[in-house]
């Protein structure tokens, strides 16, 4: 006798520990296998782009903090770079170095969260995550020391940064730079050859090179698929052209490669921090910019290699004090474009791992 079967729908999220925020995957299942998946988001949509049209150029900076709240200084940076391009302002050299330092600290903080929660999604409950949190805490302390805020830093300004680094900052980062590589090694040793990790991530959630380029993936997702593309190298901003570092890439484009790329990038970030600290010049940290900034009419696109990928701002000015329009190129949203293809044919547990390996922040997806 033939057994009658029919596909059924499983909702993962919006409230679910592994969705890293409020994200819903509507999965159509055939037994335990996913036959179709539709991501549903927008639960955190605040209309940042619309709010920005009513604020001054400087008033928009705090809005960017709240997008990818795991790496606020990086968001600030992408936005002020776009406005600086529009207004023809150049930040002083010391500010450029501070921007690099902050950008890399943000990357380290975001990547520690990414790999920590990735392991959590794999089922290594809490331990790896808390290890990573321990290190991230040190970075947040550094941010707090600089601008008084741990998460929503609001540190960058058009033409520089809001204030100079405090005296105790440089020795603290130097200590951090010495300790961090040892910690990364220790952490990586726990993970990289772990049989369960290998079984759960190797060959799972493969994103081909062609697909990665076609969806406009960026950051570790693109590099994990073997494309050597990093805005810090391809279109250097601030003083990245004076830094020596490598671009780690993967070969298979699976979850394991994306994880490896992130860990390697953390090592490279420490390298960049070392160099930036050694070269850090004295001087002004903020160029003279009018309080009510009115960039000439036109459009500009500023982009950086954020922790999650290419973070860009397309800013249009009509010559008034508020941006006429600004659009955010959110890497988290665009990297999600291939999730459907990546999870079809796999089990729910694999979909969770694949989703975790993309590393998104819902504050940035929904904006």
């Amino acid at each position: 006798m033939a057994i009658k079967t029919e596909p059924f729908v499983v909702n993962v999220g919006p409230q679910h520990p592994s969705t890293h925020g409020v994200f819903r995957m509507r999965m159509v299942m055939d037994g335990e296998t996913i036959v179709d998946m539709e991501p549903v988001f927008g639960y955190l949509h605040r209309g940042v782009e619309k709010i920005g049209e009513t604020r001054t150029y400087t008033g928009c900076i705090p809005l960017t903090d709240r997008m990818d709240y795991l790496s606020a200084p990086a968001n600030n940076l992408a936005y002020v770079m776009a406005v600086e391009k529009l207004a023809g302002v150049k930040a002083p050299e010391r500010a450029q170095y501070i921007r690099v330092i902050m950008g890399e600290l943000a990357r380290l903080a975001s990547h520690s969260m990414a790999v920590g929660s990735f392991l959590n999604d794999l089922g290594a409950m809490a331990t790896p995550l808390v290890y990573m949190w321990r290190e991230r805490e040190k970075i947040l302390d550094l941010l707090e020391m600089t601008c008084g805020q741990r998460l929503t830093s609001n540190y960058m300004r058009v033409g520089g940064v809001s204030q100079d680094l405090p005296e105790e900052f440089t020795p603290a980062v130097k200590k951090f730079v010495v300790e961090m590589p040892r910690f990364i090694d220790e952490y990586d040793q726990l993970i990289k050859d772990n049989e369960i990790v290998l079984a759960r991530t190797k060959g799972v959630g493969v994103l081909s090179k062609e697909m990665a380029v076609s969806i406009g993936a960026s950051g570790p997702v693109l590099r994990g698929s073997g494309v050597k593309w990093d805005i810090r190298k391809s279109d250097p901003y601030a003083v990245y052209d004076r830094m020596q570092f490598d671009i780690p890439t993967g070969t298979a484009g699976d979850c394991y490669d994306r994880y490896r790329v992130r860990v390697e990038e953390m090592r490279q970030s420490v390298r960049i921090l070392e160099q930036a600290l050694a070269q850090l010049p004295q001087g002004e940290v903020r160029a003279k910019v009018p309080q009510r900034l009115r960039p000439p009419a036109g459009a500009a696109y500023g982009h950086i290699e954020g922790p999650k990928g290419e973070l860009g701002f397309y800013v249009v000015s009509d010559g008034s004090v508020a941006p006429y329009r600004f659009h955010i190129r959110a890497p988290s949203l665009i990297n999600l474009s291939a999730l459907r293809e990546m999870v079809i044919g796999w089990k729910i547990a694999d979909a969770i791992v694949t989703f975790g390996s993309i590393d998104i922040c819902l504050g940035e997806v929904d904006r």
Partner: protein
Amino acid sequence: MTTLLSAQNVSKELMARFPDMVVESSGSAVLVKSQALLEVAAFLKATPGLDLDYLTLMTVVDYLDYFEVVYLLTSLQHNHSLTLKTRLFDRDNPSLASVVGLWKGADYQEREVYDMFGIKFVGHPNLKRLFLWEGFQGYPMRKDYL
């Protein structure tokens, strides 16, 4: 450094191929007529030497008289970029050909534009609101939305 392609040089090639379709070219931005958008985009993607295979972003600016649709295209191979623009003057029922067939990354971005500006993309495989819910009235990113 990512080179910005000269719009003037590119539009010479475009004009030879698509006469009367290029409206304006300044800096690194080419403005084409909306009916030719898909063909021009396909040409830019496939032509050797241009190879604009990576859609960095697409978005819309509402100028009240018209919508300006902006595509920022990059070539990972040559490390250069070009801005492709087109204008839609029909405010009540704006529509444009979808480029999802060329760049899969346009999928969500076109849906976002549809969600926020109400521009319909012909040929999009799954055109529905991205962030707001079905049944939401109006298109909030339009300048005349209150």
